[in-house]
């Protein structure tokens, strides 16, 4: 495999007049965990489906494992493993039957399937449930089996589309551990989409932030957060927020102010030293401060800086595993 695992150039994907992916350029070196972060409907899944050959690019180009997704799709398929957002498992088959079939789909011989099943089950913990029908599995187990199925043919690049959406916190952390282990121990390149800030922050070597089909920021989580400033002061006010912004913008150490609703996000170089002047300025400009918080920047602040909105994970998919 080449030194670049995934590369896109001006990649677009339209559905009718709607531009779901609007000219994305990314380059992911081999062995990296790349987190693709964005809210629901941002274009994450469409991009993954395009890179996995399920959708054809409307324009632009993309290569995965050195092969063009539009013209060398079979070669791409041989080199990728994919676990899409909804774990597609036949509920009437056992975990072992699903993994065996998946191995056959990739042309593996019987002894290779047995060998690979041992390998992936050492990495992805299914336990004795492997011989139960998947209809009896919990959400977390389904995700893990889906991950095992994506690995059975030993792919070079693993695509995980929102691998923990809908999982409870404990299951989420187990999936994180397994993803990290795949990268650490096997050097597998992992392209991960998520709507969870913490997931991107914890797992990804680099993060791309997508909004409305466009890549709005890219870098390591630390570098992205550093762009915002060393610290962030969040002020919720009642009154004229524009006036409040003008009042705090001139304070020494304030690097930027973003307004969203009644909330000001104030990027500062030195939070401890700046929060008092900010409080005084707000108090003196005629607004009523109902909440004032000092914290370090998050990827949500990065998203806010670039889009003017917060990332809102899909509430219906939060921790719904039983």
């Amino acid at each position, binding site marked *: 495999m080449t030194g670049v695992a995934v590369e896109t150039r001006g990649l677009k994907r339209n559905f009718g007049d709607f531009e779901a992916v609007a000219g994305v350029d990314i380059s992911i070196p081999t062995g990296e965990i790349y987190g693709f972060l964005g809210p629901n409907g941002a274009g994450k899944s469409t991009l993954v489906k395009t890179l996995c050959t399920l959708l054809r690019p409307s324009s632009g180009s993309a290569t995965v494992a050195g092969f063009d997704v539009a013209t060398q799709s079979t070669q791409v398929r041989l080199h990728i493993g994919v676990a899409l957002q909804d774990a597609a498992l*036949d509920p009437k088959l056992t975990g072992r039957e699903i993994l065996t079939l998946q191995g056959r789909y*990739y042309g593996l011989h019987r002894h290779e399937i047995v060998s690979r099943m041992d390998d992936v089950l050492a990495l992805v913990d299914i336990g004795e449930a492997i011989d139960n029908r998947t209809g009896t599995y919990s959400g977390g187990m389904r995700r893990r089996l889906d991950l095992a199925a994506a690995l059975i043919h030993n792919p070079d690049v693993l695509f995980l589309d929102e691998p923990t959406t809908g999982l409870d916190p404990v299951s989420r952390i187990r999936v994180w551990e397994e993803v990290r282990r795949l990268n650490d121990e*096997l050097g597998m390149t992992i392209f991960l989409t998520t709507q969870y800030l913490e997931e991107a922050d914890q797992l990804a070597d680099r993060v791309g932030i997508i909004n409305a089909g466009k890549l709005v920021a890219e870098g390591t989580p630390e570098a992205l957060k550093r762009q915002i400033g060393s610290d962030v002061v969040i002020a919720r006010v009642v009154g004229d927020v524009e006036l409040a912004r003008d009042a705090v913008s001139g304070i020494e150490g304030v690097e930027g102010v973003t307004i969203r609703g009644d909330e000001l996000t104030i990027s500062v170089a030195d939070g401890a030293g700046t929060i008092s002047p900010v409080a005084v300025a707000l108090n003196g400009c005629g607004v009523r401060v109902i909440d004032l918080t000092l914290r370090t920047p998050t990827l949500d602040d990065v998203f806010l800086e670039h889009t003017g909105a917060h990332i809102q994970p899909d509430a219906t998919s939060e921790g719904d595993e039983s």
Partner: protein
Amino acid sequence: MTATTAPGDALEVPRSTVRARPGGFFRDLASVATRALKLIPRDIEGVIPALVVPLFFFVVNVGSLSKAFEFSNPGQSFKAFQIPVAIIFAVTGVSRASTLVTDIQDGYFDRLLMTPMNRMALLLGLMVADFALVIALSIPVVALGLLLGVHVTTGPLGVVLFLLLAGMWGVVFTGFPYAIALKTGSPAAVNSSFILFFPFAFLTTSFLPADQLQGWLATVAMYNPVTYLLAALRSLIMVGWDATALWQGLAAVLAVGAVSQTLAFRALRGRVRKG
């Protein structure tokens, strides 16, 4: 990364040398068929009606119409006349189309499309499983007929050909529900494809020989391919080796197959190219 890993949890797993490769058409075909066949006994409630309905109609028709038929067709057995009808009832519309549409809806079909599998094998593999199932469904119907005293004039070879023709018809007909499943991805649409069964199965020589049909029904039956299939199947049981009837029956099956399979594989191509 700050997610915790329990001590001793980290396994030193060397990168496997196993690599994916295209399995080839026949291996892909076998993989799809194997899964479909494996699921049949686990979804047995979907198969039982296909077995019960033809046996029920056979018993009821024979019980109620035998005397009338044998009065107007002296020397002919209504049981022998009805066995091919029961077979048509057993094999027409039996398919894995509902499984396919479930696969489409829950994403399993996408999983298959992301593998290097041969695209035609995705559909043909299901049809191989259908063929095995319709043969399996036909055997008890034929066995019942034999138990009730039906004599197959062409002997065991005729029975084999009888089952093969029935199986071919069953597979040919699956093209319609598969086309609907692939085109719509809708379980309701697939279920409604059963409506196609009625004109094929009833506007024909189901209950009377062709020369006793009258009016519009006689005209429709003349153009219904099942008329020729029934004639071929009946010839094997009641007449003997009748090359004309057999060729006409085979031609009728192939003609319907040309239409249904074209629709099905076009729909497959459309879904695969949806991207």
